[in-house]
Structures are given as structure tokens and as C-alpha cells.
């Protein structure tokens, strides 16, 4: 039975897609904005720019001084932030009902009139902040750069998912004020944006308020290029070994997957759960519980829209165990699933966990609003939030087997291995 969160959808004359999902259980409203620009739109030499730009959105606009966006909303009881990812940039705040109009006014000011306030000083300051963010989250973390290796080896040069959202230090250094102006004009426009209101507001009133504050913005986004065709599975296996000072060996085993929100992508995500995503997955039972050659096993499927998604299994190798043996065991389990398919219990378990996860994600207004924006921007259908579990339940055992056979065979894998370096020599690296 589908969920029944209400979804009222309206497109304003300037192209802004508005969804209102009323929920009066808490006197709050979440404003969640997805702009159709992410790191996949960045040009060579400007990686990391979409994210740096996101930081500048907090540094003032035509009628708002630098820092005021945070300050004004927090002082009124708002919780807010923004994030950048491959396919989109997301701005959001959850505010008391009586602050909704202020939130919309502040958002409209920066989404319509950012360039009036951008300065070289703000750009330089936030460039420094973003570099510290990169150091904190990637460079100064054990295994922190593993995903950067995954993207680079899983996707061809020039592919939109070949580089990470955080970008490179060199490209961050190269970003100029002219780039900021150009980027804003190309991508920040109502016709490239979805705005979701979730919470204590009626549908008509919500649309009316959005129109009041965003109606004056003009449609001007550049036409979106068509999405790339589906990438075939990797012709592998491909291996990247990194010797690092890490606490234990860790294997990141990655696959290209079908694009997001397709039945085949859902089947792949269930297959990955059965192999290594559940605490009772095949790999967890075998390597973590019985053979005890792995400390932990995890799997995830990240859905993207531009020609490929990513599936990944992460294995922490137990001290004293051989990472080659651990990887070989995973290889056997991948083949076995693709040969024989999941058991009834495995499918039931994957669905039970997916259901709890999905309902938990929908439990808060802010996360629900985020999912509504996602399905509206990327798939043009907010109702998918309500029907997702039904679509997942409709996936058959045969479809899971077929998906594992086509996408998750061991010869389609990329392995990025972070290996402890007893010599601490630091940088001996091999790419095969």
C-alpha cells in the first residue's frame, strides 16, 4: 500500500517548480531548495566550484549582508545549511511557522540577486574555508581520499563523475570572481530549481507565499544538455593500491550501476544488501562472523542521473588476515549471488531493512522535504516518495539475480585498497 504524504505541485510562470507537503504535527516548516547544478556540471580546471559557490551563497546578496542569512534565521529558531553533491546543490532551513516568510525572502534574495554582493574578499575567505574543509574531511582522515580514487578509476576521464565534489586545491586556487558571475548566470535560475515546503502550511498558502517572493525572478537558465547514455559495466577488474599509515587494510570494491530510480538500480541495491549490506549478509556471516578475516562489511548504492550510478562494498580487513583472501571471498559471493540469486529470507530481510530506513528518513519534515525535492528535480515526480517502497517490493528474485549477473560480476569491479604500510614509507603506489 503506498504511503500517503500529500504532494501539491505547481510550476510558476518563471519555471520554478514548487511542491507543498502539509504536515501540521509540528509548528515548523522546512524550506528545501534543490538547484540543478552539482559537480557533474563543472568544467575541467574548475573542479570543486559548485561547492565553493554554495559557500558564497551565505556571504550576502542584494539586501542581505554577509553572514546575515545564518544569523537572522538562527536567531528566529531556524536550523539551516546547504550541501553540494554530484547532481545538485541543496539549500535548506527548518523554521517556526511564523518565520516562513522571512526564510523565503532571504532565499529569494540570494537565489535572485547574489551577484550584487559578491566580493573578491568573500571569495578569498571562503576559498580558505573550503580548503580547510577539504583537509578536515579528506586529506587529514585515514582513508579520507579513497573515494576520490574510486571516482577517478571507475569513470573515464572527462566523465561528469570522474572527479569529487570537493575538487582539487589547484582548481580552488584558480577560481575567479568572473567564474562566480558566469556560474550564477548559467545555473542559478528559477527554471533550474525546485522549492519544497514541508510542514505547517496549507498548500494554497504555501504556493502563494513562494510566488510572492520568487515570482519576480526571471527564467534564464541555460538549456540543460541531454543526459549521457548509460555507461556499460567496467571492463575489469581494475585495481588501485595505496600504501598508507592506516589502522587496518580496507578494500573499497566499486561497480558502475544503472542510473537512479530505474527498476534495475533498485534490483542492484537489493543485491548489494544481500551480499554485504545487511548485518546478516553473506559476506558478514562468512568473513566477519565465521572466518573472522574481516572486522566489518558494508555496502551501498548511490543513485545518480548522468549515465551511471555507483555501487560499493567496503571491507575492513582484520589484522593478520590477507586482503587478497578477503577480496577472493567477496568475489566468490558475488558470483554465487549472480549464479543462484537471493534466498527468500534474504529478500525479505533486505526489504524489511529498506522499509525501516525509508520510513525513518520520512519521519522528520526536513529529510522528507529533501526527498521530495530530489524526486521532483531529478525524476520530475514527488509522488515517488510515496511509491518507492511499493516499487522496491515489486522487484522479483529473478530481477535481483539478473541485475547481479549484469552489473555485479567480479570482473566488473574496481578495487581501491588502502593497505597498512609497516615501513611507513608513505607514498609507494601502484596502479594496475
Amino acid at each position, binding site marked *: 500500500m503506498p504511503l500517503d504524504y500529500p504532494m501539491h505541485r505547481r510550476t510558476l510562470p518563471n519555471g520554478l517548480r514548487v511542491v507543498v507537503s502539509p504536515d501540521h504535527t509540528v509548528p515548523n516548516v522546512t524550506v528545501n531548495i534543490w538547484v540543478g547544478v552539482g559537480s557533474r556540471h563543472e568544467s575541467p580546471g574548475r573542479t570543486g566550484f559548485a561547492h565553493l559557490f554554495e559557500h558564497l551563497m551565505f556571504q550576502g546578496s*542584494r539586501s542581505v549582508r554577509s553572514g546575515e542569512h*545564518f544569523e537572522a534565521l538562527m536567531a528566529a529558531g531556524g*536550523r539551516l545549511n546547504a550541501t553540494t553533491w554530484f547532481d545538485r546543490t541543496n539549500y535548506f532551513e527548518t523554521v517556526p511557522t511564523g518565520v516562513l516568510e522571512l526564510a523565503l525572502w532571504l532565499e529569494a534574495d540570494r537565489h535572485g540577486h547574489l551577484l550584487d554582493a559578491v566580493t573578491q574578499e568573500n571569495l578569498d575567505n571562503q576559498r580558505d574555508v573550503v580548503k580547510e574543509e577539504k583537509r578536515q574531511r579528506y586529506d*587529514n582522515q585515514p582513508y579520507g581520499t579513497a573515494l576520490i580514487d574510486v571516482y577517478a578509476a571507475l569513470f573515464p576521464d572527462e566523465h561528469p563523475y570522474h572527479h569529487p565534489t570537493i575538487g582539487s586545491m589547484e582548481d580552488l586556487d584558480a577560481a575567479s570572481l568572473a567564474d562566480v558571475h558566469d556560474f550564477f548566470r548559467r545555473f542559478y535560475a528559477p527554471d533550474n530549481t525546485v522549492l519544497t515546503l514541508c510542514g505547517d502550511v496549507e498548500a494554497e498558502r504555501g504556493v502563494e507565499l513562494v510566488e510572492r517572493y520568487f515570482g*519576480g525572478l526571471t527564467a534564464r537558465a541555460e538549456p540543460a544538455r541531454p543526459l549521457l547514455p548509460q555507461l556499460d559495466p567496467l571492463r575489469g577488474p581494475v585495481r588501485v593500491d595505496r600504501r598508507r599509515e592506516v*589502522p587496518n587494510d580496507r578494500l573499497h570494491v566499486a561497480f558502475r550501476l544503472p542510473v537512479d530510480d530505474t527498476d534495475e538500480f533498485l534490483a542492484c541495491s537489493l543485491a548489494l544488501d544481500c551480499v554485504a549490506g545487511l548485518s546478516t549478509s553473506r559476506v558478514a556471516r562468512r568473513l566477519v562472523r565465521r572466518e*573472522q578475516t574481516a572486522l566489518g562489511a558494508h555496502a551501498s548504492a548511490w543513485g545518480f542521473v548522468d549515465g551511471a550510478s555507483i555501487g560499493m562494498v567496503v571491507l575492513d580487513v582484520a*589484522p593478520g588476515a590477507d586482503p587478497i583472501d578477503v577480496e577472493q571471498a567477496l568475489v566468490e559471493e558475488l558470483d554465487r549471488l549472480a549464479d543462484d540469486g537471493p534466498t527468500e529470507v534474504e529478500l525479505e530481510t533486505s526489504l*524489511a531493512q529498506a522499509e525501516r530506513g525509508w*520510513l525513518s528518513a520520512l519521519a522528520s519534515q526536513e529529510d522528507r522535504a529533501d526527498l521530495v525535492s530530489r524526486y521532483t528535480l531529478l525524476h520530475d515526480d514527488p509522488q515517488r516518495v510515496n511509491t518507492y517502497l511499493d516499487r522496491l517490493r515489486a522487484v522479483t528474485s529473478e530481477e535481483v539475480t539478473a541485475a547481479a549477473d549484469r552489473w555485479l560480476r567480479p570482473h566488473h569491479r574496481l578495487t581501491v585498497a588502502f593497505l597498512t604500510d609497516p615501513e611507513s614509507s608513505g607514498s609507494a603506489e601502484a596502479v594496475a
Partner: protein
Amino acid sequence: MSPARPAVAPPEPWTFPAPVEHVLDNGVRVLLHDVPGQYVVSLRVVVPVSLRTEPAGREGVAAMTARLLDEGTAQHGPEEFAELMERHGMLLGAGVSDGGLLVDVDVPQAHLATAAGLVAQALSEPAFPDGEVRRIVRNRLAEIEQERASAAHRAMRELSRTLWDPADRAATPAAGTAESVGALTRDDVVSFHRQRVGPAGACVVVAGDLAGTGALDVVAGSLGRWTNDDHEPAPSPVPPQPSADRRRVVVVDRPGAVQTEIAVGCPGPDRSTSHGWAPYPVLAFVVGGSPTARVDAVLREEKGYTYGIRTSFRPRVAGGSFVAQGSVRSEVTAEATQLLLGILDGARDGFTDSELRAGTDFVARTAPGRYATADAIADESAALALERLPVDFTTTTLRDMADLDPDDLRSAYRRTVTGDWSVVLVGDADTIVPSLDGRVPGPVTTVDR
């Protein structure tokens, strides 16, 4: 013409969702929060346990006991138990804080009864198979290495060791050290469980859409049957003893590190403080709770030295700490630490009316959203139970906040922040140590990574 800047309408008064309270025949206290629309139900069990009662040299036995509860019971083997939980959509976590053992479960509404039954089994008749004990101990040893590798974890561990008296349990990680955990045997776990984990003083919290679940009967029929005749209730909590030489700087050497993790702290209040808890969340926000708070206005927005440094009061069941933590690029470590301590000490001079207003409004007006979901309500309710605070504590604290004036903030801050700091810097000692001279007070020692 753009519309004019709209005014803000003040919110209606709000209260933390009140639980319905029961006491079961075995003495277990039950708090039920019916939250319509929350289809994933959160079940929490808290058992007062004092880590001081762990045998000497066996620190971590409480945490390992918690982690082993669901690794097999009298009725089900470890894999079978895991499968039962996972097939019913359960997610279970168990661990310890300084004041108790906590079991956290999230489960779809339809499976609440199954979940409660499995939790009751896990608490009352865990089997602690020897192989599982050895596996969980090995995993903890690996986890210790992973925590050592993380600059943020490493900094907090060193801060505890610097802040608290070496003989106090608080100076050692709650989940134990490599030495103490490595020494654990199945017997240690079995006897700790028998002696220290029982229904006396325990509290069960259930939050979520409880319509049609028969939640009280479900809990009474499962956790209400839990008995343990050997259980010795936990002693009353006492605050940790600060270290006599806590006013110093410890550099944890990470040769070549591109950033330095900074953690500075001092002893702080618990939520039962006789002066009232209301000022502390406001102070944490005003001093270091946002990009425009005092700390990041300088270190992030003016200097660009950090992605963010946050301040927090960290209450324990008794006592607590005040901590500022974040990372900066290596070459500015000394200057950033000096600026940070300057801002923290400078705040002893007091706060403005607008800071007070912004801070109280932020904390009070975000509360309805922060406590909107079943898991958030259950977590807060369980924490209050363990801290022996009344169920309306959250509501009365917010009410008290409305009456604060700048002098209240200043007095509360000065009671905690005396200018005596424990400073931990995790980074490249060769870069850091020579630059500290004269900029950061206290003797400097360097320890291995």
C-alpha cells in the same frame, strides 16, 4: 520591485511531549510517548551502571557486555538472533555512557512486540558465547586503533586524560583501553552482567505512533518479566575529579599532518546543577554554536583558518565539561589557539542583550523541530531518566531560559570558565611546538601519535 523584508511572528508556547508513566511489577519504569505519524517506533532501555564498578584492570567490561547482549541468548544462537532482528526491520545498538548501559532499538510499528521480546531476551538471558566474546574484544581492539587514527577522536581521548585525575575512571575511555579490554575473558563479562545489569532502576522508553500497538502490555509482557536476584544497583553518581595539573598543553605528534586538531576544555556542570541548566545551551550557541558565533566569526569568517570550531557543554550524570574543538591548517596552529583562548577568556566579561536574545530564541524556538521525531524524543526521555531528571525538565528549562538576563549568562559562564585550560593539539609537533612559545599558557608536553 522585490517585496519588503517580512516580519517574524513569534511562535506559540511549546512543551516537550509528555510521557504516560507506569511502573511494572518488577520495578521497571515505563515512559510512553504517543507521537502520531511516527511509524518507526523507538524503544530505549537504560540501566544505571557506574563505570566505577568495573573491576580494576578490566575497564571496558561494561561496554563489551552491552555489545555482546545481542550476540546469542539462551533461546537463539548469535546468527539466528541477528537474523530475527533484521528480518523484522529492527536496528539495535547497545553501549554505555558514564552513567549507564543503553539499548537503542528502532523498529517499524508492526514489529514492536517482536522487538520488545528480543530486547528482553538480550538483557535477561544473554549467552555470551566464548567465540563471540573473543570476536567482540578483537573488534574493540581494532576500533581503538581506528580511533587513534582519527584526529578528532585522538584529541578527545587526550583531553579526558589531561582534564581528569589519572585515578578517576573518567580519564580512561568508557569502552576501555587495549590493555584492559585485551585482558577480558568470558567470565568477566558474565559476572559483570549478573552483578550490574538488572531491572532495578531501569527505565524503558517507547516513542512513536503507538495506536493499536498495545505498547504497555507489550512492554509488561516482555521487559516486565525481567528479573535478576544477584543485581547490585549502581552507586550514586559522583562528578569526576579534575586533575591537579590540568592547566597544560599536550601535543600529540602527527609528523607531516596538514591540519592540527585543537581541543580545549575545562570541567563543567551536569544538567542537575543547582544554578539551573538554562544558561548553558545558550552560552554554547553564543560562544561557538554557529558560523557567526564569537569563535567562528573570527577564526572562520575573518581569518579563514578553519572549516569550523564548535563549543559545547558536555554534561555527564554527575559533573561534565566545557569543550571547544575543531581543526586548523598546521602553520596557523599557535595563532589560532591563542585567538581561540582569547575569545573564550574574553567572554568572561559578559554578553550583550542581542546575544542573549539570539541564543535563547535559537535554543527555545528550535526545540519543537529538534524533538519532532520518535527517536529524538526517546533519546531525550531516556537521557533524562538516566540523569534522574523529571520528565518535564526540557520544558521547564526552556521556560527558565526566557527569564535569563545577560548577568545570568555571565555568572554561569564564569562559574565554568576560569581561564585554566587543558589544551590538546593533534598535529605536526615540529611545526607546532616552537611556535607555541608565549602564545599559549601552561607547560607543553609532546606525546606519541
